[in-house]
């Protein structure tokens, strides 16, 4: 959905077309659900919290400044809602890394090998991400997984632009350290 189309959808929702909100939910449910899952480690909690976040965003949509980007605003609502949930329940966990699935329906050996390498890379990077604090992890994911500009990362995390740059930079640095430590450990073990 391009920004113009997104603005049209938001205008339609604000004009009373609740069904149009489905387009926004369908567009952003995956990153929101995954962000909450990364923070809670529970699919059930992630589903409930994502639903609450979308409902809350709808209720507050009349306060949204039309013309601004919807996703960072939604992300902030979902993030704050999840943090409140974790504060009350104190059940925050890190996600398991077995969500990198290997689809082995290919007959070609070389493709199979590529997929295994990709799987290992995926497990390696996800394992490292789980060891980052949520502040650094979300900054890195927003910047490189969602490919948001720094301004939007700052908006989504409710921090300044320089703060966002710092978090992304330090997050990457810490991630690199974790990966190097893991690689050293694996080499020593073998």
């Amino acid at each position: 959905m391009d920004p113009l189309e997104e603005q049209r959808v938001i205008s339609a929702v604000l004009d009373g077309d609740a069904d149009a909100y489905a387009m926004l939910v369908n567009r952003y449910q995956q990153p929101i659900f995954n962000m909450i899952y990364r923070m809670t480690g529970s699919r059930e909690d992630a589903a409930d919290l994502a639903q609450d976040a979308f409902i809350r965003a709808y209720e507050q949509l009349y306060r949204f400044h039309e013309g601004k980007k919807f996703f960072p605003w939604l992300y902030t609502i979902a993030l704050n809602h999840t943090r409140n949930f974790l504060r009350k329940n104190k059940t925050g966990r890190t996600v398991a890394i077995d969500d990198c699935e290997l689809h082995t329906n290919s007959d070609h050996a070389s493709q199979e090998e590529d997929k295994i390498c990709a799987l290992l890379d995926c497990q390696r990077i996800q394992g490292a991400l789980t060891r980052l604090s949520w502040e650094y992890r979300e900054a890195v994911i927003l910047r490189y997984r969602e490919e948001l500009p720094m301004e939007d990362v700052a908006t989504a995390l409710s921090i300044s632009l320089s703060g966002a740059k710092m978090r992304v930079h330090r997050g990457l640095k810490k991630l690199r350290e974790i990966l190097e430590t893991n690689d050293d450990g694996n080499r020593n073990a073998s």
Partner: protein
Amino acid sequence: MLIARQIRQTPYLDPPVMLAPSVLKAIRHKRFPIRFRMLRWARSPRSLTFTPLQAAFVASLLILVSAVGVSHLLQSDYRHASQPAAPGGVPITLTLSMPEARSVSVVGTFNAWDQKGFEMRKDQEKGAWTLMLHLPAGHYEYAFVLDGKEVIPDPRAELYSDDGFGNQNAVLIVGNHHERTS
């Protein structure tokens, strides 16, 4: 940036299939605050579509209403301007402070300059002469006759008119709902 590329390629879990439908079900009956809705409605441009026949009908109606309104206003003004005085005329009290006079009468265009029947009465305490008249709305000239021989205009009149013989008459303008005390 190998790490950045690897982060970009990390897979996402699929959200539950029922997430979107459950959100929609929950919001279906929610409404934005009435103040916001009214403000948004007021700010939204509206377009009207009509057939030429409807336009002609509406235009005729507007012309008719305007004509009736203008006519009503004109009639109202006319009535206001030409409304006859109440039965008996507008009460007017003429007063002259002249305690040394023995008699005072009023002559004018309203009595064809005939003082008979228009003698003023003296207030013994104040020494002022008064006479109440009931005149239809209009423009009048008048004067006081002292002791049956000396004619003077009303010294308290607001307007005077030359009588063509070197003297002046007081001018009295009587309007509707107008009670004057001279």
